[in-house]
């Protein structure tokens, strides 16, 4: 009846996951009861869960990413404290538990923290920057989000029902094959990633279509903001790379479920095939994450320096260059598998070409600051923190790209320090910068600046104190994923890293305080005009928060930085450009399709993990039924009447006119 699932799947004898699961479960229950009692459920359902508005979906993606970031961070705290204790001692986490934690940490951080934060920010900002009203396929967008949430849910269910993979975040066979991983851990991993991977692929298709086909009038390619360019590159990579991941994982599914022999030790299986394929996806994945991050830094550095981005064309070329080259460097993840000197050298050199184009970007950011008037708001601090630390992470990456150096550093803590250095200071810093930067646009009020700076300094110092010692531990020969060790020379560095993670933890707390304080002081922090940072791209042309239709009139783009030009004209003439005649705007209707599909995908994934075949069948049939129901829908749009559009846009114009008047007085006074 329940396949492999029995009551013993719940780890009754392990207090840590049990208590963690209970706390999370009770919190969720309490929140749900509160929502129901307060009568917020219809609002939640209407405004968020079934919303196909790219801005709402973006916010939900970011929220999911931040919650999962917290979960992944707790894993990190456990790993670092285990290693701090486990010198000539077993520590407090047995291998069975510790191995799940580092596997879950990597999986969650990449797929369910970094990806949702980046995709969320793209969702929120790209259509606004392109000057359009939504993405190409709004309901598909909602489905993508909910499928990602499904994946995150399955990974978190594994905390209390059964176990997670004990293979690392990439389940290298033969370790991930049935003989060596007979439990459900790898199956949870596989179905979580297959389901959320489908969602990510649909996001890629959606955004490539949006950027290629749905720009405002006059928004030529070479007038797009840098964030739109990097989003385009990133989504092209998603479209090209995620099918490889899906195919690879399906082959592993076939091995585990139907006795195929793609990667196992029997029947001529070859694990090297898996490792090549997974990195053929895995390396582009790194750039799927970091390219939008580069886009965010480009926006932030330009805005807060009060200058256009230096070398825009170079930046576009560099972005597309990274996009292409990222597909021909995958072998540098396994130089130590004995490929031979020519192969290793070619892949090493190809990797250094990525260093070239990234170097170009760094210099262009530098020259963007040159001659500017830099305002050190929180997003700019994150960008400066990025520039300083990312250069170090890039350098250690280039060291690892030299095969003979990699022969002594591969899989060491030096490698761990390197990829945390590039992913934290690249992707995570960008995520935080983007959240602070676009928060007023999304919610109509800014985040508290003082607490934002506290977050920045704690996170920066915590990051340095955690990972710079790990570089040293790696040079001393300490390898990754050790549950215990007895080499005295490594110990001080491991202890230092534990101190670092504690400092980062203070940063996490400041993050929560910042959110609470900002919500409390939201009236004082209100963004009246919709342009809180003196921005340059089109998202700042509309109100904060933007109306459902984003723009009453699609902007007429006449050059790079269209909003900056509009603003300068308005300041010169002391008037906003005259509004045209308001017309009714049709927008896509809400749809429960995404939520329903994901709900049944969760059921299917859980059934597949535990071999509960009736549940699999029911989940698939109902998910398909939901899709048919959606396809049969007669009305998929609703109209916002012209009067309503006029009223909403009138408010925005009034706020802007007031700002112009205030600004004029200030300049006269000066």
């Amino acid at each position, binding site marked *: 009846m329940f396949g492999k699932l029995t009551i013993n799947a719940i780890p009754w004898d392990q207090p840590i996951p049990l208590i963690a699961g209970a706390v999370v479960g009770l919190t969720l229950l309490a929140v749900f009861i509160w929502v129901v009692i307060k009568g917020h459920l219809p609002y939640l359902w209407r405004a968020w869960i079934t919303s196909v508005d790219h801005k709402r979906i973006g916010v939900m993606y970011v929220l999911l990413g931040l919650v999962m970031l917290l979960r992944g961070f707790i894993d990190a705290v456990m790993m670092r404290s285990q290693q701090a204790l486990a010198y*000539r001692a077993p520590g407090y986490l047995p291998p069975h538990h510790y191995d799940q934690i580092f596997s879950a940490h990597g999986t969650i951080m990449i797929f369910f923290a970094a990806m949702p934060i980046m995709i969320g920010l793209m969702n929120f900002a790209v259509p606004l920057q392109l000057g359009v009203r939504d993405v190409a396929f709004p309901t598909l967008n909602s489905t993508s989000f909910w499928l990602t949430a499904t994946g995150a849910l399955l990974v978190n269910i594994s905390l209390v029902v059964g176990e997670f993979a004990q293979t690392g975040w990439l389940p290298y066979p033969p370790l991930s094959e049935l003989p060596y991983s007979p439990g459900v851990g790898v199956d949870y991993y596989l179905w979580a990633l297959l389901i959320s991977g489908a969602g990510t692929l649909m996001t890629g298709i959606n955004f490539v279509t949006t950027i290629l086909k749905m720009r405002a009038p006059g928004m030529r390619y070479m007038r797009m903001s840098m964030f739109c360019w990097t989003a385009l590159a990133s989504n092209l990579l998603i479209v090209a790379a995620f099918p490889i991941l899906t195919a690879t994982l399906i082959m592993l599914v076939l091995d585990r479920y139907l006795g195929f022999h793609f990667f196992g030790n029997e029947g001529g299986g070859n694990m090297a095939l898996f490792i090549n394929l997974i990195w053929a996806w895995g390396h582009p994945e790194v750039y799927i994450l970091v390219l939008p991050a580069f886009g965010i830094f480009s926006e932030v550095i330009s805005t807060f320096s009060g200058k256009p981005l*230096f070398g825009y064309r170079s930046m576009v070329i560099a972005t597309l260059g990274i996009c292409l080259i990222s597909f021909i460097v995958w072998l540098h993840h396994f130089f130590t598998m004995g490929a031979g000197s020519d192969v290793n050298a070619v892949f090493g050199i190809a990797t250094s070409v990525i260093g070239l184009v990234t170097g170009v970007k760094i210099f262009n950011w530098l020259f963007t600051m040159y001659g500017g008037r830099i305002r050190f708001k929180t997003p700019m601090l994150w960008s400066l923190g990025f520039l300083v630390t990312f*250069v170090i992470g890039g350098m250690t990456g280039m060291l690892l790209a030299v095969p003979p150096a990699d022969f002594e550093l591969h899989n060491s803590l030096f490698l761990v320090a390197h990829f945390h250095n590039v992913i934290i200071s690249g992707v995570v810093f960008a995520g935080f910068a983007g959240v602070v930067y676009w928060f007023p646009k999304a919610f109509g009020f800014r985040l508290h600046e003082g607490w934002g700076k506290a977050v920045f300094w704690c996170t920066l110092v915590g990051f340095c104190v955690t990972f710079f010692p790990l570089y040293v531990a790696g040079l001393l020969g300490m390898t990754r994923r050790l549950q215990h060790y007895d080499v005295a020379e490594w110990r001080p560095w491991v202890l230092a890293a534990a101190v670092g993670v504690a400092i980062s933890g203070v940063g996490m707390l400041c993050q929560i305080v910042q959110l609470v304080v900002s919500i409390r002081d939201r009236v004082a922090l209100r963004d009246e005009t919709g342009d809180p940072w003196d921005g340059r791209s089109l998202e700042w042309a509309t109100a904060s928060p933007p109306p459902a239709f984003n723009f009453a009139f699609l902007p007429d783009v006449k050059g790079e930085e269209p909003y900056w030009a509009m603003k300068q004209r308005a300041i010169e003439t002391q008037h906003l450009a005259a509004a045209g005649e308001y017309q009714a705007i049709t927008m896509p209707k809400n749809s429960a399709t995404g939520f329903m599909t994901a709900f049944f995908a969760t059921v299917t994934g859980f059934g597949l993990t535990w071999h509960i075949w009736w549940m699999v069948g029911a989940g698939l049939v109902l998910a398909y039924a939901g899709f048919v129901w959606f396809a049969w829908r007669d009305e998929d749009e609703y109209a916002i009447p012209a009067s309503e559009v006029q009223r909403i846009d009138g408010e925005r114009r009034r706020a802007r006119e007031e700002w112009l008047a205030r600004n004029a007085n200030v300049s006269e006074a000066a």
Partner: protein
Amino acid sequence: MIQPQFLAVAPLTAKAKTSLFALDPALGVLDPQGPVAAGNSQILLNALAIMLMIVVPTLLATLAFAWWFRASNKRAIYRPEWAYSGRLELIVWGIPLLVILFLSGVTWIGSHDLDPARPLAEEAKPVEIQVVSLDWKWLFIYPDEGVASVNEIALPTDRPAHFSLTSATVMNMFFVPQLGSMIATMNGMATQLNLKADRPGNYHGQSAQFSGAGFSDMHFVLRALAPDSFTQWTAEARKSRLALDESEYLALARARATSPTLFYGSIDRALFERIAARRLTSEAGPISAPARTME
């Protein structure tokens, strides 16, 4: 389903038994003890030096630009429209290009000189050592000397060593940080590695590839010995009553646990080839405690 219960493998006791002699300080790749490690480290430092030439000025420029062009500094020039300069673009592309040209040279030459499969430029005939990674211990077979050992390996300091490596189980990585290059051990394949120890010493060795629950115990001692001490070591090993034949190997492979140091006085010389060719395979059994105590 019942949670697979991991039986504590008692790393402390196992370790205590192997530590009959003190390990040299594990100073890793910063303390090379052989020509390969010296070569690796040299390339590491060369590449680092090449990159620091560009990284340090970039870091300083970042901090300097950010500080000087702060909004409150009225002495700094303000060029709000400045966004392109052909000459600067040349520098922006040119400097990183030069750096990666240098680095590519280092990469190309280094990859060929330090290819793990390339025999070392040494007069002396290499010691042949066959390595099999097991769950979770290392089997070292000396086909010429006719001995084998578990979790302890010895090299003479006057000869290089040639390793052929495979895995009876999942992938592992053979790594002695102070001797240099690591190499993967993979089921159904044999990889090649050449190393040499210059000075006598007891070096920490380990698997660098996560391989399951007992991975953390998968370390070993590499004893670099003066020539006569090495002869003595093989003679001692030969005195062991244990014989490494098919059934002994299968028992070793089946016990999914770490192992104390073992020595085999006689060996089946065809064993390694049969393991690497998957003609001698063992099913993965349940995770268990050490199968045998030290003889």
